[in-house]
């Protein structure tokens, strides 16, 4: 362990990674890191843990607003499409019905609303999360694989303004007795 560390002394540091095997340990730890004022850090859990957002002080995402706008766009597009095609560009007489009447246009408008909103929800989520991102330094760590299985992690990035190789390590060690692992940047 030590030797390997010294070996990679000069390699660029991504940050520290620390492992937990209990939900409540994680929560407590997250709260501590949050209170220490770190901003560029994260928790990694195999499933959603209620309360972790609060414990980490994650701000509420803007996704809902994006989706709402997309929905409105969809509705407008739906109505416009039907008005343009059937009432404006090529009006034809059908069953003695008016060229444009909302009732007949509701179903399609509704579907387009949903379609736009739904797609924006997924695409928006990916965009905000910066996915797809097939490579990430954390993947270098063998034990990190269990982040998708049954273990919980906290990682603090070296890029964090408050980050300091020694103090941060000490902070982490004070939180848990698990070994703190260094993660290098990939090239």
């Amino acid at each position, binding site marked *: 362990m030590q030797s390997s560390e010294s070996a990679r002394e000069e390699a660029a540091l991504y940050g520290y990674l620390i492992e937990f095997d209990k939900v409540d340990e994680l929560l407590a730890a997250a709260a501590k890191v949050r209170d220490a004022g770190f901003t560029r850090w994260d928790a990694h859990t195999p499933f959603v843990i209620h309360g972790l957002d609060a414990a980490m002080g994650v701000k509420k995402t803007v996704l809902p607003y994006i989706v709402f706008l997309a929905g409105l766009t969809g509705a407008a597009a739906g109505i416009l499409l039907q008005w343009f095609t059937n009432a404006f560009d*090529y009006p034809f007489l059908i069953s003695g019905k008016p060229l444009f009447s909302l009732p007949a246009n509701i179903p399609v408008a509704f579907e387009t609303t949903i379609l736009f909103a739904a797609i924006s929800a997924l695409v928006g989520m990916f965009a905000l999360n*910066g*996915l*797809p*991102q*097939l*490579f990430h330094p954390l*993947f*270098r760590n*063998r*034990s990190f*694989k*269990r982040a998708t*299985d049954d273990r919980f992690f906290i990682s603090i990035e070296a890029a964090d303004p408050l980050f300091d190789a020694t103090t941060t390590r000490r902070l982490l060690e004070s939180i848990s007795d698990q070994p703190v692992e260094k993660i290098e940047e*990939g*090239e």
Partner: protein
Amino acid sequence: MNEDKSNDIFIFPKWTWVLRPAIAIGGLGGLLYATVVVAFGFSPLTTDVGYAPVQPVPYSHAIHVGQLGMDCRYCHNTVEHTASASIPPTQTCMNCHKTVRVASEKLIPVFESYSTGMPVEWVRVHDLPDYVYFNHSAHVARGVGCVSCHGRIDTMEVVTQKEPLSMGWCLDCHRNPERHLRPLEFVTQLDWVPAEDQLALGQRLRETNNINPPTDCNTCHR
């Protein structure tokens, strides 16, 4: 499980980060490309306009109409009264060519046809789908000039399709005919240009001859 035997751990290279922008750009770009291809590649403007097949006899409208100033109706004599303008019988050609250019090699098929009675097989240039019922008389008798659909035939050595002849194109004129209306006496005069503004003239002709072209389906499809 974390003490698995395979000590090499699979990991994607860093360059895979280009994926994100790649997907975004590729997606939008591809969409744009497809639209352009369909819009222009498949349009009759691309596929039909400019069609100028080789005819059995190199008959030049430029000479006959342009230089000699023959009227369209001399040959296409049913155009005012019937649906089809009808290609003239060999007779018609021979009216003049009995005496004119009797030695011309180009005219051999005509002479043969005249003597044998076997027709000359012209290649159709302006060819509408089989389910479209176009009526020449209905247009000519209402003041739509030949030129509106056939272009300046009088300048063509080889007859060429000038207009897309697509349904949308037909509808354009049926919806606002004034752009193409002219006094009846000028219908066959291909180089005629209105003294006044075409729209004003068209508007007036439209009212005087109460021209309101139908856009019902069964106007053309039966």
